[in-house]
Every structure is written in C-alpha cells, then in structure tokens.
C-alpha cells in the first residue's frame, strides 16, 4: 500500500488553493495597482505600527490572563474522577459550539452603558462604569472566546502525567507545592505552549471582537486588513502587505514558542 500517486489530487488541490493564494499575497504586497514592483506598501505598513503594537499588546494580555485563569481550572478538572472530568470538559467546550459572533454579541448586551452590568451596578448604588468600546472590553472578549483553547490542551497534558512519577516525588519527601513546581508544572509545559499559541494567534488577528466590543477607536491588525479588502479603504496591495507582515510575525512567534516544546505538538483535545 505504498502508492504516492494517491496524494496527487490532494497536492494539486493544496497547490492551487493554499500555495498559489499565498504567492498572490506576496505578489500583491510587493506591487502597486498597475502590477509594477514597489516597496511602497511595506513602508506604508510602518505607518500603522501603533495598530500592530496595540494588537500584539492586547493579544498578549488576553493570552496571559487566559493562562492564569485557565491553568488552575484545567488542574482542578484533571484532579476529579473520570466521570466528573468528562462532564466538566464538556461544560468547558459547550460555549465553543455556539458561534463566536453570538457569544461576542452577548457581551455587547452585558457591557453597554445601559447594559445589564451597568443596570445592576446602578441598582445596588454603585455608579455606572463605561465599559463597552474600551480596550478592556476587547481583552475581555478575547479571553471569553479563546480561554477554552487554553484549558483543553493543558488539561489533556495534565491527565497524561504518570501518577507514579508524582508518587515517587512524594516518597522522596517533596511537599505538595514542591511536587507541583518541580514535577507537574514542568511536565505540563507542552500543553501550556499549545494553549498560548492557540489563544494568541486568533486574538492577535481578530477583527470581529474589536469591531463589536472596541467600537471604532481600538483598531486591530485584523480591522486594518478588513478595511483594505472589503471596507471603504479598498486597497488589496496594502492589505496584502499588512497580511504578509502579520503572517511573518505569527510564524516567528510560533517558531519561538516551538523552541520550548519537544516536537510532538498535537493540537490536543480540540474535538468531542
């Protein structure tokens, strides 16, 4: 059953619809409207460096908070009985099955100036706080949408840790804190790494969350790209240049993250 021919239809498909489009992004990024070579687009991207910085900054904050919030939950879930684990993991995944536009929309309802949270705050005598259309709201939206991607890989790594290793550490006199810091946490690093990438990549490149929760004032890279292709500022050449820079940035980040990981990076536990 060794026939390479079987892969040809797939290779043709992938070339046509992955490789060629990517080549077109590169081509557009380095040409102007008439198709002549130019570096103008890439230098224009420089003008938006504040947007890039904001996206990376907000994405990084959202990723960090997701890790800090998600790790303890993954750890708690992994401690439970098998039946309990299944139920809890199902509960973590259930919101993900709802379209993320709807989930983000729900937060709009909650965060608005006349929204439910503010009404509740006013009712108990605390003043209203302006929450929607702030960077905080964008970060909240990112955390809400992507925290399951942090919890699931960490959980799946934690459950695979051999219990006898933990027992061995305890036998050798390590207390609970030491066992966690010296044994459990280091062994869960691969899960943490894939969690970080799975939260950071979509968070940095989102354009819906910023649009819905950030108002017009908190543009992210994704919004910028959207504007060049489907928005008022129609300019696919500039849009391609921004996409190219975003892609290179992400690939560099992934490369760095993979340095900490020992190869076998399965996209742990995404489904059912």
């Amino acid at each position, binding site marked *: 059953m060794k026939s390479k021919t079987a*892969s040809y*239809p797939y290779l043709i498909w992938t070339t046509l*619809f992955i490789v060629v489009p*990517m080549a077109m992004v590169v081509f557009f990024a380095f040409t102007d409207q008439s198709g002549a070579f130019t570096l103008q687009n890439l230098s224009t991207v420089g003008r938006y460096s504040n947007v890039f910085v904001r996206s990376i900054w907000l994405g990084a904050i959202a990723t960090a908070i997701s890790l800090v919030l998600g790790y303890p939950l993954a750890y708690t879930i992994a401690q439970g009985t098998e039946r309990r684990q299944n139920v809890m993991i199902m509960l973590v995944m259930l919101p993900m099955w709802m379209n993320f536009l*709807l*989930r983000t929309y729900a937060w709009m*309802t909650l965060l608005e100036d006349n929204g439910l949270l503010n009404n509740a705050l006013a009712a108990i005598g605390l003043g209203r706080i302006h929450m929607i259309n702030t960077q905080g709201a964008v970060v909240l939206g990112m955390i809400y949408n992507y925290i399951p991607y942090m919890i699931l890989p960490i959980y799946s790594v934690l459950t695979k840790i051999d219990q006898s290793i933990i027992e061995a550490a305890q036998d050798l006199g390590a207390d609970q804190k030491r066992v966690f810091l010296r044994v459990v946490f280091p062994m869960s690093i691969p899960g943490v790494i894939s969690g970080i990438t799975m939260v950071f990549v979509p968070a940095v490149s989102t354009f819906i969350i910023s649009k819905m929760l950030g108002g017009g004032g908190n543009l992210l890279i994704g919004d910028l790209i959207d504007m060049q292709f489907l928005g008022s500022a129609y300019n696919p050449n500039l849009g391609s240049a921004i*996409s190219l820079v*975003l892609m290179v940035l992400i690939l560099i980040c992934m490369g760095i993250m993979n340095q900490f990981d020992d190869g076998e990076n399965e996209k742990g536990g995404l*489904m059912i």
Partner: protein
Amino acid sequence: MKIASKVYTAFLFLFLYAPIVVLVVFSFNASSTRTMWGGFSMRWYEKLVQDQMLLLALRNTLLIAVISAALATALGTVAAIGINAYKGIARKMIMNVTKFPMVNPEIVTGVSMMLLFVFATRLFGDSSLGMGSLIIAHTTFCLPYVVLSVMPKLNQMDSHLYEAAQDLGCPPVCAFFKVVFPEIMPGIVTGLIMAFTLSIDDFVISYFTSGTTQTLPIYIYSMTRKRISPEINALSTVLFGVILLLLLVINLRKTKDKKAEVEK
C-alpha cells in the same frame, strides 16, 4: 475538591455561561430593547421562522457544510494514504504545507483565497464569488483536519495485514476496502465530523470568499451590525438548544456502547 477550588470553578463557569444565559432569557423578552425586561413573549421566535433570508442562509450553510465535509474527507483520506508512502524531507515538507492553514491566521487565509477567486473571476468572466468559492474555501481549510486525523490511524495499523490479505488472494483494491478501510474508519469519521462542524461555524474565511451569498454566520454578523435585533437572541437559543441536544444524544449513545461492551 477543596472549597477554594470549588468557588473558583464556579466563578469561571459563571463567566463562561452568564452571557449565554442572558441571550436565552432575553430571547423571550416582549420588549424590543436589549436590556429592559418587558414580559414573556415568543414574538422573536415567530419573526425568526418567517425570516426568509435566514432560512436561505441556513440552507446555504448546511449545503456547503455537507458538500465540503464530504469532499474534504474523500480527498483527505486518499491523501493521507498517499502521504504515508513518502519518507524523509518530502514527507516533512508536505506535512508542513498541510498544517499551514491551521497555523496561519484565518484572516490571512481568507484574504489570500479572496485574491485568487477575484483573479479567477476576472480571468473567466461571468462567474462571481458565491457557493462555488465558498465550497472550495471550506474544503481547503477542512482538509488538514481530515489528513491529521486519518494519518495516526494509518501509522498505528500493522502494514503486514494489507500484505497478508493480498497473499490470501485479495486484489489491492479489495484489500484496501476489506482491511485498511475498516482500520482507519474511526479517523475518517472524526475527520468528517470535524470538517462538518468547522464548516458550519466558519465566519472569517467565508466573510472574504462569499461575495453576496449569505451563510448563517454571515447573516448573524449582519444582524449584530444592526445593533438592536432581539431576533438574534432567539436564533442563539435555538442553535444552542440544537447543539445541546446533539451532544446529549452522542453522549447517551457512547455510554450505551460502553455498557454493551461491558456486558459482552
């Protein structure tokens, strides 16, 4: 569990579910504001059922999901078998290209395909973006998931089984369907289900490749842009109910299977 971790778990689940509860509760709101309760009513559900655009979008979404999941599963399964025959650098390169759409930001994949499709429509004239481009795009981003769920099953399989079948007089095609296919079936099914759900749920890539064709997520997006549209709450509730029901059925079947296994 200790009290602290119980409280913590409860807090996080509250965070995860509060927005969904709000959507569900307000879908029964009689008033058309998003945040004031005006009594119980089913009016948004009635509106939903009468919404022709929505029904069309739903039909498109299901059609695209069925076709592209089937296409991706067929193409991806055959591809996995082919890729398995490669060794060394060639294999590594193919796998890297395969994983690329999973790693690449969705928005970049979306705009890159948009560039291709716009170019193609200029080249071939009449056709414009729509069902065709959506099906191609969805098949493309589902493919890696199928390949990656079939590959491990192929690797786990004992390759001698296939040879043994041939030694016993089964021609290659027959040996494939009698021996290899049943072995890798779980991987294929997983791939198919993943492809289907990914396709139904996709917004970003569809957004850039749909032209004027509406899919459910795109329609939802246009609803959220309107700011006040309580219909959305009703729609969310219906979708959430369907998902919940599906998951319950799947889980019940799983426990049944387990029980049956134990009884054997």
